[in-house]
């Protein structure tokens, strides 16, 4: 048995006080004038006689009551195996540092609980400290020095990330794997909001010998309002936002919560809406027709702040600029323009309203300039022929910087020029033409994004697409490329038909057939237009995003080519290369704060909006029964043991509730003492009445 508040045991010393009073200081109050004390003085050791305790039972009752009270206040608890005194014990304090822990001082409570566990941990036990969210931060690997563990616990700060129990528990298990034989306990200190734990359930499985002790630090009630998501265009052309900006607002209150949603553009309040959200409802609020400035627009959506204000704000960057065109370069034109590959591609692209007339540029390869290539969103090169070296170099840079290119080897393609220009770069050579009547595509990789929409044969039947001729492609193992081409489709005889080749940060889609109707009937089938769109989507540079979430990996080169000069956090802090958020080569960074980051380049500054990680706003606490059920599942083969672990907190609480029994016992003893004392006093008063002399 140990005590939570052992200092209270000093109170037991007070037991000496009544004894001392009784034996040393406390004289009889009754004074009886007597003729002479001659004979009383002669009595054998009268003082000792007086000091003798006469009401032993009364004294014992009082002493017992006092001791019981002292022990009750010292908060005794029984040491179980979990706390055990074995030096082989390894404890891991797994503290939830997710966004939800920012509410109501939850992390502070978690730290307190962790320190309590540290204080109770047996001597010699090794303690590890891990803070986790969707990122695991092993602050202290198993360490015997409590001071280090305590300092690490105190240094933990809440993040803006979501919770990932599976990852946290896995990290703890990894630590415990290195522990020597002995008891291994993971103290999972969290607020256990329902949604996250549910998702983690199937991923957690405890090995034998490891116990998971959940410690809940969430207060009752989990009311919160939050902006869960915003749907917005990242790039617009018009001065007015052309569509509806959709804001998903969740009300996790138990009552309806009227609130105001405000939309700010470049810190100007442009629109404001009052909404009454029913309890437990996720509503969508629309904003439209708000003005935008040219260039980057810092957009902020805000709710009235509540207990977790970080998810009541949402940041966006909307660019108002002209879109980049898709550049279609025709290597050779042997037919009328209406039958050229460029024509078919242009028509296929224009079938989508997103592509206005100015967004598809069809040019002859010989007329192409490097500037056109640089400004293009994607490039479609049909029937490649000899290239201007500058254009060739620009094309390579374009792809290496993340651009996408579709290379179609049609009937007019110059194989020699291709092999000279693109062969070594792509690792593919054209070995001539193949003439095979009625060839068709097989082995289509429907798992690839390019062909994924065509996975359902009822909707897309490539068997109707016939190829009479095709280019014979040969992979060149001696090419400079270290990334081999990926064959996405083959002809029926096994020759590659569609290859995806990654170069730099971009991709090249190499087709062994042309995009016109000479070698195949593809342009004449309903598959053509969607296939062109899919090919373009799969290779072109990723569209800018209006916002990122905390913890996402942001490629800085996507935002602007070249290394950034500086990255400034929302609070103005300059982020260092290789630090917590920025990679060593400064090409990527992982934001950990919410707000607008600023990435400075030679050509200017680009803002990046970052918001809290999704899924943390529903603070509704998990029911204990539900938690136990899940813990049973987590325990796997040791389900019962896991249940026991689940109940550990309760068992510990029960172990610590000895004070209640002691207090009750003290009350009973005091009641007995009161009855006995009353009787004694009555007898005493009666004797006083008999023995006290009365004058007069």
């Amino acid at each position, binding site marked *: 048995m140990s005590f939570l508040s052992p200092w209270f045991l000093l109170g037991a010393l007070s037991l000496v006080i009544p004894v001392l009073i009784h034996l040393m200081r406390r004289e*009889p109050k009754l004074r009886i004038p007597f003729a002479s004390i*001659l004979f009383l003085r002669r009595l054998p050791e009268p003082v000792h*006689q007086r000091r003798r305790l006469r009401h032993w039972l009364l004294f014992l009752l009082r002493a017992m009551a006092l001791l019981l009270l002292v022990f009750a206040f010292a908060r005794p608890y029984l040491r179980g195996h979990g706390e055990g005194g074995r030096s082989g014990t390894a404890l891991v304090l797994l503290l939830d540092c997710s966004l939800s822990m920012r509410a109501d001082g939850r992390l502070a409570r978690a730290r307190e609980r962790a320190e309590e566990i540290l204080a109770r941990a047996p001597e010699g036990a090794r303690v590890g400290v891990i803070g986790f969210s969707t990122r695991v931060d092993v602050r202290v690997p198993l360490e015997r020095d409590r001071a280090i563990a305590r300092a690490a616990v105190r240094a933990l700060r809440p993040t803006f990330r979501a919770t990932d129990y599976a990852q946290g528990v896995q990290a703890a298990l990894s630590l415990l794997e290195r522990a020597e034989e002995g008891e291994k306990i993971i103290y999972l200190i969290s607020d256990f909001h329902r949604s996250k734990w549910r998702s983690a359930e199937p991923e957690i499985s405890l090995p034998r010998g490891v116990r998971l002790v959940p410690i809940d630090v969430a207060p009752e009630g989990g009311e919160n309002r939050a902006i869960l998501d915003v749907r917005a265009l990242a790039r617009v052309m018009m001065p007015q936002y052309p569509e509806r900006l959709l804001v998903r607002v969740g009300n996790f209150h138990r009552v309806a919560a009227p609130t105001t949603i405000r939309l700010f553009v470049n810190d100007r309040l442009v629109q404001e809406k009052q909404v009454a959200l029913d309890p437990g409802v996720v509503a969508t609020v629309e904003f439209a027709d708000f003005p935008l400035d040219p260039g980057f627009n810092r957009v902020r959506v805000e709710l009235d702040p509540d207990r977790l204000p970080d998810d009541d704000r949402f940041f966006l960057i909307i660019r108002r600029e002209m879109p980049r065109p898709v550049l279609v370069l025709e290597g050779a034109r042997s037919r009328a323009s209406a039958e050229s590959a460029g024509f078919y591609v242009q028509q296929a692209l224009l079938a989508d309203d997103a592509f206005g007339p100015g967004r598809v540029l069809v040019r002859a390869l010989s007329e192409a300039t490097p500037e056109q290539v640089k400004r293009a969103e994607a490039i479609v090169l049909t029937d490649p022929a000899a290239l201007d070296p500058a254009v060739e170099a620009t094309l390579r840079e374009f792809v290496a910087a993340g651009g996408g290119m579709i290379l179609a080897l049609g009937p007019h393609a110059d194989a020699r020029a291709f092999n000279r220009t693109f062969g070594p770069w792509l690792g593919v050579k054209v070995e001539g033409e193949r003439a095979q009547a009625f060839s068709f595509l097989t082995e289509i990789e429907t798992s690839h994004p390019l062909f994924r929409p065509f996975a359902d044969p009822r909707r897309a039947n490539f068997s109707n697409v016939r190829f009479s001729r095709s280019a014979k492609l040969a992979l060149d193992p001696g090419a400079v490329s270290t990334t081999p081409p990926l064959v996405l489709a083959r002809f029926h005889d096994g020759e590659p038909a569609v290859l995806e080749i990654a170069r730099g940060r971009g991709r090249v889609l190499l087709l062994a057939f042309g995009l016109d109707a000479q070698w195949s009937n593809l342009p004449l089938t309903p598959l053509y237009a969607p296939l062109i769109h899919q090919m373009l989507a799969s290779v072109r540079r990723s569209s800018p995003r209006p916002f990122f979430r905390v913890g996402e990996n942001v490629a800085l080169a996507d935002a602007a080519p070249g290394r950034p000069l500086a990255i400034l956090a929302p609070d103005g802090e300059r982020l260092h290369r290789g630090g917590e958020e920025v990679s060593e080569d400064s090409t990527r960074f992982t934001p950990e704060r919410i707000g607008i980051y600023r990435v400075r380049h030679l050509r200017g500054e680009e803002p990046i909006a970052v918001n809290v990680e999704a899924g943390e706003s529903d603070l509704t606490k998990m029911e204990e029964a539900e938690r136990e059920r899940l813990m049973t599942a987590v325990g796997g083969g040791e389900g019962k043991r896991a249940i026991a672990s689940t109940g550990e907190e309760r068992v510990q609480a029960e172990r610590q509730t000895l004070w209640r029994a002691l207090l009750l016992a003290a009350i009973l003893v005091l009641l007995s003492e009161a009855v006995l004392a009353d009787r004694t006093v009555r007898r005493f008063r009666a004797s006083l009445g008999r023995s006290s002399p009365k004058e007069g």
Partner: protein
Amino acid sequence: MNRSTDGARPTFRFLRPEVLAKISSLELLARTVVEGFLAGLHRSPYIGFSVDFAEYRPYMPGDDLRYLDWKVLARTDRTYIKRFHGDTNTRVYVLLDVSASMAYRLPPAIEKREYACYLAASLAYLATRQNDAVGLITFDRGIVEYIPARLRPGQLHLILSALERLKPGGTSAIAEALRRIAERVRRRGIVVLLSDLYEPPDVLGSALRLLRSQGQDLMVFHILDASEVEFPFSEAARFVDMETGEEVPVAPDALGAEYREAVRRHLDEVERFCQAHGIAYQRVLTTQPLDWALYTYLGRRAHLP
């Protein structure tokens, strides 16, 4: 009045001391006690301790016929009773302890000092009535008041007045006081000591022997409150010495028996000493009527000339 034949000596029930205390005049009190006492002694063998004829008086119904002067009756045919004068050569000194301890009482008993006062007054009255020269000496650790023994009119009044104005004294030192008294009282007589005798028996004995060696006929009335003997207390208390103020915490239920035994030994030692040295000793409790003391006195007086 009741008369009892319990024991070798008769006991008489007079007014209880607490009733006597309601009589404001000490003289009246003494007369009440003594006359009542004497009236009850008409069968006593101790009458006629004086043989000197004093006068005749007409017979009254109730007079003892033994004192009827038959010769006169024969000569004059009238009934006369002969009355005698007692001897006046006996001096009676009443030594009254007025120390603070004599003020003790446990209700409903009266104070030992009061009781001793009544007894002293009664003895003085009785002695005066018997034509003895009576004196009074009050003392605590020394002589407080000294009234020499004389037989003269007003002597009794003087003594009673002294008794009435008694004030509680200080600490007692009986042995020392008796030594001083022995220096003052040189002529032989009866010395009646009224005290609670809170002295060690050997010290007390040496002082009594001094008086005895002077030829004094000593009578000791050891006046005690019943509680001093029985010690009826039960609860722990601080017992305060009424003379010195010294306090002793005592748990009576634990030490009562030992106290009673100590007192009993003390009383026995004093009594044995008195018996061994021819000193009349009478233990008197303040709850007892005064006749017992008077009886002792008269019995002792009868042996004197």
